[in-house]
């Protein structure tokens, strides 16, 4: 479903040139649960942004459902983000002082989903993310960190995306809450969603079906069983 071929990303700022990704290639099938690990600054987020159509590679090709999306215009990328991708951020990125309901239906607003259908969709997705519609009228700033991330996950689900991308979704949460969030992703995966998440935590990497490790912009390891991964073992508890 996802096929990345020789992707390179170079950031050009004033005088310095940062090579964030060097000739990266891999593919991901429908229904996979992939953890991307690697040290800070290795290019994980950069890769995630390209997979999420938030950014385009400097070189190389990215096929999403067989279609090359690496050369699309801004507006076409926006359409793909709207219809095929659900993004979950480390810092939640909820609308401030706004109700849970309005946060969840935000993608539906841009997808022109009729108003009378939104509550139903929001309810289903919030339930899938582990909260109930009782939270609809809560303001985003009245929630705990774990609840905020669940709302963010519900928001990522409303457009029924092909893939859910999560950039360190548990990075701002304590390990217990992180565990609950991880279970949420596992449930979604069991229901058939393709999930790619970036993590620093060993227990999360261990629960993934596949682990890709990136260092200095290059894939150094790509294994389907974490017990065979040297990199996962290296992560301290």
């Amino acid at each position, binding site marked *: 479903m996802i096929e990345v071929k020789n992707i390179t990303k170079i950031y050009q700022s004033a005088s310095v040139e940062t090579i964030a990704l060097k000739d990266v290639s891999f593919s991901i099938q429908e229904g996979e649960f992939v953890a991307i690990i690697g040290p800070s600054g290795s290019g994980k987020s950069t890769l995630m942004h390209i997979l999420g159509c938030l950014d385009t590679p400097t070189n190389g090709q990215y096929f999403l459902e067989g279609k090359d999306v690496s050369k699309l215009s801004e507006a076409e990328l926006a359409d793909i*983000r709207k219809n095929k991708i659900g993004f979950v951020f480390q810092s939640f990125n909820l609308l401030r002082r706004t109700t849970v309901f309005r946060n969840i239906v935000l993608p539906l607003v841009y997808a022109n989903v009729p108003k009378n259908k939104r509550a139903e969709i929001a309810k289903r997705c919030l339930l899938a993310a582990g909260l109930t519609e009782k939270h609809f009228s809560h303001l985003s700033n009245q929630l705990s960190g774990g609840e905020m991330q669940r709302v963010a996950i519900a928001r990522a689900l409303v457009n029924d995306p092909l893939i859910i991308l999560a950039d360190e979704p548990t990075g701002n949460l304590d390990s217990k809450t992180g565990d609950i969030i991880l279970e949420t992703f596992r449930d979604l995966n069991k229901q058939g969603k393709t999930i790619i998440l970036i993590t620093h935590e060993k227990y999360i990497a261990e629960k993934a079906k596949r682990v890709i490790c990136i260092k200095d912009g290059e894939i150094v390891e790509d294994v389907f069983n974490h017990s065979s991964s040297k990199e996962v073992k290296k992560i301290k508890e």
Partner: protein
Amino acid sequence: MLISDLFEETYFAITANKARSGLTILGIVIGIGSVIAMVSIGQGAAGSIKSNIEAMGPNLITVTPGSQQTFSQVMAQRGSAQTLTIEDGEAIAENILNVQAVAPELSQRYQAVYMGKNTNTQITGTTSSYLSVKNVELALGSFISELDTRLSLKVAVLGPTTRDDLFGEEVDPVGKTIRINGINFKVIGMTQPKGGTSFGSQDDVIFIPITTVQKFLAGVNHVSTLNVQAISSEVMSGVQNSITNLLLRRHNISDSSLADFSVMSLEDITEAVTSITNTLTILLAAIAGISLVVGGIGIMNMMMTTVTERTREIGLRKAVGAKRSNISLQFLTESVFLTFIGGIIGILLGIGLAYAVTIFTGMTTKVSLYSIMLACGVSTTIGIIFGYWPAQKAAKLNPIDALRYE
């Protein structure tokens, strides 16, 4: 994005910071309000001057001494030249078709006295036709008759203000004797109140036979104005031309550009006054317009701040699928909405101000639909113009950079 979503987002954005939105709107309110109030004052002045001029008499043509053709210059020269006579007026009445009546006039200010009460008032010498020509009505007694004029009798018809000054209100002055410039006059009547004009009260006046003014008060043979009434408004310009030709012949002048008199219809005067008041209105509106521009800059300032504050939010919206057009439209709607609310309140404020001006200063004001529409148009345009740049700035943001923004 559905229209209702756009409006909902706008509502939430504007109410999120009520104080700031309120102050920004206030800038527009003051701008629009002052434009409407100023224009209403200007147009009110124009309207009252016009209606006063029209009240001077129907289908009136005035012939004044002096060679100039324009209104303001005639005003300056009036009275100094001494080229028109009662005979000119009689000739016009006799020889020119479509002339209803001619009322010659010679006006000067004198002191009038009755039993120790004094007033300095305008003495207007005229004839019996003055009543119909100048649209004046009698309240008491009778007006100057032809016989009075022929015999230069010392009779006087008082204006209501003059009656109040000399006799007191509600007193019947008919039959009493007053002194004008030391000469005794018998009061034979009083006119109805006509109201003031911008040139002075039409009620503070004493009418006496024109021949009496010429012989006993002024000691001259000329008149200051010939008031000619045409039979209808359609024949006005024809009558004006005939008067000019007749007087040129009577005064032995062959070149019309050297004419020692000028012929003007009320329309000409109204036109001249209108052009002056229009200039005044534009000036007032321009001054008020400056505050509108300042209000617009307030909008831009607020929108720029909002865009900066909401950079992360813009990034998020883009990440979930918002296009450039969605973002720019949202911010544009916000600024247009702010100016629109400001415009509506501003119109109400403007109408209120105009009303207050009328109550407290007595000035006539006129709030026209035109000025309201102009204000609405201007405020919406300001919303678009001053909102466009911030909206573009927001729309162009790269989603990742925007999300990273601290």
